[in-house]
């Protein structure tokens, strides 16, 4: 059953691309919050925020906001299976002679691509506001982190969607998973500013390593060694992908 159909994966990916570029208002809508975070927090907290010595707040904030964009967009992408189930298109996908694994990979490829595109777009206002990127190598490395972050949360979204019967769980996930994950990740302020008991939760949050890795690669500042960020995030990514694929495999269409 673990057959991989590249053509089907491509087909599912292409569908996401067509939908992404067609629904321009949705794209603008989903880019607005990170843009406001960046523009308003970046200016508002510039002088008061305690960030590591010698770091501009915008340099600190922009990678965090990119992490946030990826988190929201990817989780949403994973959960969008709920819409396909609601509107019946999931049946069209499931009745095709395509392995469940290929379906997961195709959806994930689509969701990750759209999330990473949004993450990259958010770099632009960041740079306009004074973000200084270390160089091309750093940018390419940050793309690796973006893909890992997006895959992790897309798969978690898919895992949840596979366990839910209807749309009612959607806001539950958004409010009780996505927001804590975002706020604890150190996207807005250094994790070291938190009291020790909260800091433990931060260390359990995959996005903490994602944001730290983005900072390391984009601006060369980080709390952990880059290799640690990469290793932890890759492990989370593999784990959640496996979980999503497994839960999708055993889920019912109806």
């Amino acid at each position, binding site marked *: 059953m673990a057959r991989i159909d590249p053509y*089907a994966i*491509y087909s599912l990916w292409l569908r996401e691309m067509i939908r992404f570029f067609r629904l321009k208002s949705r794209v603008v809508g989903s880019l607005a919050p990170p843009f406001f975070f960046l523009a308003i927090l970046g200016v508002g907290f510039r002088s008061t925020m305690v960030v590591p010595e010698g770091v501009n707040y915008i340099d600190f904030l922009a990678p965090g906001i990119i992490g946030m964009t990826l988190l929201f967009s990817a989780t949403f992408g994973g959960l969008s299976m709920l819409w396909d189930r609601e509107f019946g298109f999931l049946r069209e996908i499931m*009745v095709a*002679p*395509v392995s469940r694994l290929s379906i997961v990979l195709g959806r994930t490829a689509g969701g990750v691509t759209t999330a990473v595109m949004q993450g990259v777009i958010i770099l632009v206002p960041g740079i306009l506001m004074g973000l200084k990127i270390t160089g091309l190598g750093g940018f390419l490395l940050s793309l690796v982190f973006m893909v890992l972050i997006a895959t992790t949360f897309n798969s978690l979204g898919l895992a949840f969607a596979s366990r839910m019967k209807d749309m009612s769980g959607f806001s539950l996930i958004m409010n009780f998973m996505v927001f804590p994950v975002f706020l604890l990740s150190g996207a807005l302020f250094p994790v070291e500013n938190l009291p020790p008991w909260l800091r433990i939760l931060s260390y359990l949050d995959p996005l903490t390593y994602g944001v730290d890795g983005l900072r390391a690669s984009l601006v060369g500042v980080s709390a952990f060694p880059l290799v640690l960020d990469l290793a932890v995030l890759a492990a989370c990514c593999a784990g959640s992908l496996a979980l999503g694929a497994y839960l999708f495999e055993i889920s019912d269409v109806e």
Partner: protein
Amino acid sequence: MNEAAIAASGLTMRFDGFTAVDKVDLHIEKGELFGLLGPNGAGKSTIIKMLTTMIRPTDGSALVWGHDIGRERDAVRSSIGVVFQDPSVDSQLTGRENLDFHGRMYGMDARLRQKRIEDVLDLVDLAEKADVLLEDYSGGMQRRLEIARGLMHHPDVLFLDEPTLGLDAQTRRYIWEYIQNMNRSEGVTVVITTHYMEEADYLCDRVAIIDRGRIVALDSPKNLKDLIGADLVVLEVGDGHLDDLAGLLSDFDWVVSAEASGDAVALRVDHGESRIPEIVLTASRAGVKIRSVSMHEPTLEDVFLEFTGKKMRDADTGGGGGKLAAVQSRMRTRRH
């Protein structure tokens, strides 16, 4: 190899104690246009979902085009096309994009896809709407697109779950034509569910009548109606002794049965049209005033009634209201 298109035995589906499909056996020939006819909740869609691998049966087994629905799900899926009862299109994509997606999922290369898309769009008269978003299609157009899609990858067996539900009479006619065409010209085996009797009667080579998860009758529409045999004649009576009239009439040897109820008498009569004068005469001799006489040849509705003792709940009644239904259902017990 001359095996059946579909061979199911003991197919059963239970939903927490409730038996939706109860030990169904089916044998559908290759090339056949086969109908599952039954009222709401009879279990038609559940049978389709099991045969198309969308749900696993609680019990029993089935081969679709020679492949086991439990163990060879991918092989079953490659052999079939399905139009589900509920919409299953992406409304953010155009008609062509929906079909293109479908073709890729079935491993069709670009040239074949393009050709088939033109073919099937022509077949359902949607060529001009190919590049319109599905959300801007009417219900009937969406349905036609789904039928086209089900056909696009040349399935061996096409399942259509209530393809004409909720469509206007004209669109339904069109769709009947498409279904018949592709069955004849493309040689596709078709399994269609419906709760419209005329649809089953008009389209199907053979019909299985389903009630409460069981097949209660299975044959060609003609043979099923011949089981009923006699025509149904209903006299609406102004006043007089209905029971006496019913008694008088049942003495004729061409009257299969006669039953009085309310202000009507229902008869089963061989060659009804030639007997009406004599019926009217008998009534006036008995001093019973007749307000109207109606007659119809047996329909699948009557067959359903015969086998289940009730009317198809929301099927078209085709004239005659509750009163007639009451007479009819009582008549059943007196047959032969």
